[in-house]
């Protein structure tokens, strides 16, 4: 394996309390970070990367990706998703189990992990379904999935699921120390809604779901967690009330965590105006008050991680009337640039806080040993050029999906180099193969 020397980069390590941001050189040998030090002399390195003026960080960890494989390889494959991830500086992705077949057994878990190893150019992890076939009726074989490498289990709320089973699920997962991730949305309250309830929906004559569709699920889950505390993660929270509830729960010591998507951080339901199906997403884009509360939640630590909820779709599925259009936004190639532009350039988060939410925090929630940049760890490293301005062009995406409301946006910060397990996969912004 080739040795790599990264010179003069601004290395950001949120775990280093004393000195989280410093100019240093990094030497990579045998797939691991051998040394991080200023003015490191390693004349014999096979590859030397000049990172002057650039940000050097652990490769990003995206804990919410729809890989679509198995079943919908027309939308995305594990291979194309990992290429998109690499292009975006993401070196570890967690696949969601709502594929066909559902990832709800050791066989399907193994399929995704093996495919990821064989065809992926970044690390592919998978979550399993909490219930068989995600039907909300019977628990899936959670222990066996965990033994075969599933990182956590997902309660998708797509199906109406009784509280009795939910409480049993908490106890069952507690038994095997399996973290649960939930998409908090009440199917009954949501009904036939296609966006957020409010002025934008009213103007367009579209049905909307109220904010309580989400906060209600969080509130009742927290009640269950008080009796059965077990690691629990609320994904893509969107409402001000949700942030409040999670903040309170954390204060009382419940083992809860939360994440937010880039699109909910940057957009409101106004983005759907003119029937913009690219902004149709589940959970829906909410109001400005909600958006600001999400940013506040990020700042005060209520929200631990930023995710993409990368959800590729076919063109035809978005090129129909709004109510009939598929929900979802692709995000792997825009995660860094959008969130960096919004959060760091606008001085909402420090570099350290920002990278914590994209690396160490999500890695900790999904129990991955990646996402850190320290001597001795596996060398997953991304280097970003924070000054590079560029225009998002969906037609240049590596993902098969073109469904983004950010097409044409001018952003700052671009992937320059990506190293996965000590091997370069992106050089000077381009995929190596």
């Amino acid at each position, binding site marked *: 394996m080739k040795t790599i020397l990264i010179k003069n980069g601004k290395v950001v390590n949120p775990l280093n309390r004393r000195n989280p941001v410093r100019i240093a050189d990094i030497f990579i040998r045998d797939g691991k970070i051998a040394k991080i030090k200023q003015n490191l002399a390693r004349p014999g390195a096979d590859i030397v990367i000049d990172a002057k003026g650039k940000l050097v960080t652990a490769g990003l960890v995206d804990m919410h990706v729809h890989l679509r494989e198995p079943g919908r390889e027309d939308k995305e494959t594990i291979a194309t998703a990992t290429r998109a991830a690499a292009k975006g500086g993401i070196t570890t992705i967690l696949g969601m189990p709502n594929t066909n077949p559902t990832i709800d057994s050791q066989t399907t878990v193994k399929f995704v992990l093996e495919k990821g190893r064989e065809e992926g150019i970044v690390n592919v992890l998978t979550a399993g379904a909490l219930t068989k076939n995600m039907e909300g009726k019977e628990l899936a074989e959670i222990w066996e999935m965990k033994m075969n490498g599933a990182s956590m289990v997902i309660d998708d709320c797509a199906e109406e699921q009784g509280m009795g089973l939910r409480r049993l699920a908490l106890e069952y997962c507690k038994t095997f120390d399996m973290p649960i991730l939930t998409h908090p949305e009440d199917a009954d309250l949501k009904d036939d809604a296609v966006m957020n309830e409010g*002025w934008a*929906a009213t*103007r367009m*004559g*579209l*049905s909307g779901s109220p904010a309580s569709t989400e906060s209600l699920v969080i509130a009742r889950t927290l009640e269950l967690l008080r009796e059965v505390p077990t690691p629990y993660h609320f994904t893509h929270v969107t409402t001000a009330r949700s942030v409040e509830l999670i903040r309170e729960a954390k204060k009382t010591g419940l083992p809860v965590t939360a994440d937010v998507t880039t699109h909910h951080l940057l957009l409101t339901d106004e983005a759907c105006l003119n*029937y913009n199906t690219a902004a149709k997403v589940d959970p829906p884009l909410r109001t400005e008050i909600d958006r600001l509360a999400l940013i506040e939640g990020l700042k005060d630590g209520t929200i631990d991680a930023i995710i993409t909820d990368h959800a590729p779709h076919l063109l035809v599925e978005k090129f129909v*009337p709004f109510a009939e259009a598929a929900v979802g936004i692709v995000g792997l190639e825009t995660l860094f640039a959008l969130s960096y532009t919004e959060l760091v350039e606008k001085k909402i988060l420090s570099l350290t806080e920002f990278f914590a939410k994209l690396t160490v925090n999500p890695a900790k929630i999904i129990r991955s040993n990646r996402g850190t940049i320290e001597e001795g760890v596996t060398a997953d490293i991304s280097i970003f050029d924070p000054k590079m301005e560029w225009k998002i062009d969906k037609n240049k995406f590596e993902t098969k999906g073109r469904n983004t409301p950010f097409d044409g946006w001018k952003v700052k910060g671009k992937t320059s180099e990506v190293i996965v397990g000590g091997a370069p996969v992106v050089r000077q912004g381009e995929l190596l193969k």
Partner: protein
Amino acid sequence: MLALDELLNTDFDLPKIISSSTLNPRMKSSSLLTQLKKARKGKNLSVPDLISIENLTLADLELIFDLTGVFKKFIESGDKKCDLLRGKTIINFFNENSTRTRSSFELAGKHLGADVVNVSGSASSGKKGETLGDSARTLDALNADLLIIRDANSGASFQLSQLTQAPVVNAGDGWHEHPTQALLEAFTLREKFGKQKLTYLFVGDALHSRVFGSQVRLYQKLGFEIRLAAPATLIPKGIENWGVKVFYKIEDALPGCDAIHAIRLQTERAAGKFVATGREYSKNYCLNPARVALAKKDAVILHAGPVIREFDIRTEVLESPNCLVQQMVKNGLPIRMALEWLLISNPKKKINPWK
């Protein structure tokens, strides 16, 4: 042949047009053309499509109302047919059942001398797996000069209008808008009240009514005081942004009203579950003589049809002299003639989205 552009042209040659015209002598063609020319003053709509009232300026509204008046007189003179749009094709693309609106658009087109084709589907194209782009290309391939589109999906007309070269009229899209229906009502009110700024009360299901969607925008533009009496389940969120004052109790809303519009409970759009029973709804919101008596003495009664008698409105009220429902139906034709003519003759052409 009568070219539209000639009519807009300053050196437009009247005798030539008359010679090519097949107008019935009862209303002199010269008279219609002169009056149209006078009313239009060479003006055009500020928009290439009619999708939402939101896009119309006050000048657009005046232009539409003025021309509607001329067309109405023309129809009333006993003649109905002219050839302003001879050689033009209008396609009624209706993806949802409709007889009255479609017939009105069709007749308007035929009165103007256009060829009118009806294309109907039971479901929207999306459900059949066709993209909006493919639908648009198919329609444009028929070389239409105007597309009249109705769809069960909010926004379908707008989305298609972005993809076709032909101008589009929204003839009703989901719960969003139905602009011609609002315009014909506003014209009817203007006939009665002139340019007065009225106190106007909606009663009933505003949530599922596309006619309401257009009316509320229109009356806000015209400076009306707008009220709505309905159960909370049928009130769209954020409606105060349109300047609407909301009442749960119809009796509180009626005093001072010049016009009362009963909105039909859209039972076919699953509005049924928003009220306990029709009986209970009707007891609380049906326009009966006692309620109407609370409004101004000459308050007019309006309804976009089809009326559910004794449910939305009591027959005594519906058949009272202050009920303008019949006038509204009549005005549907001239307003659509005016719009079809304005849109087809608009010299500002849309850009071909596929080139």
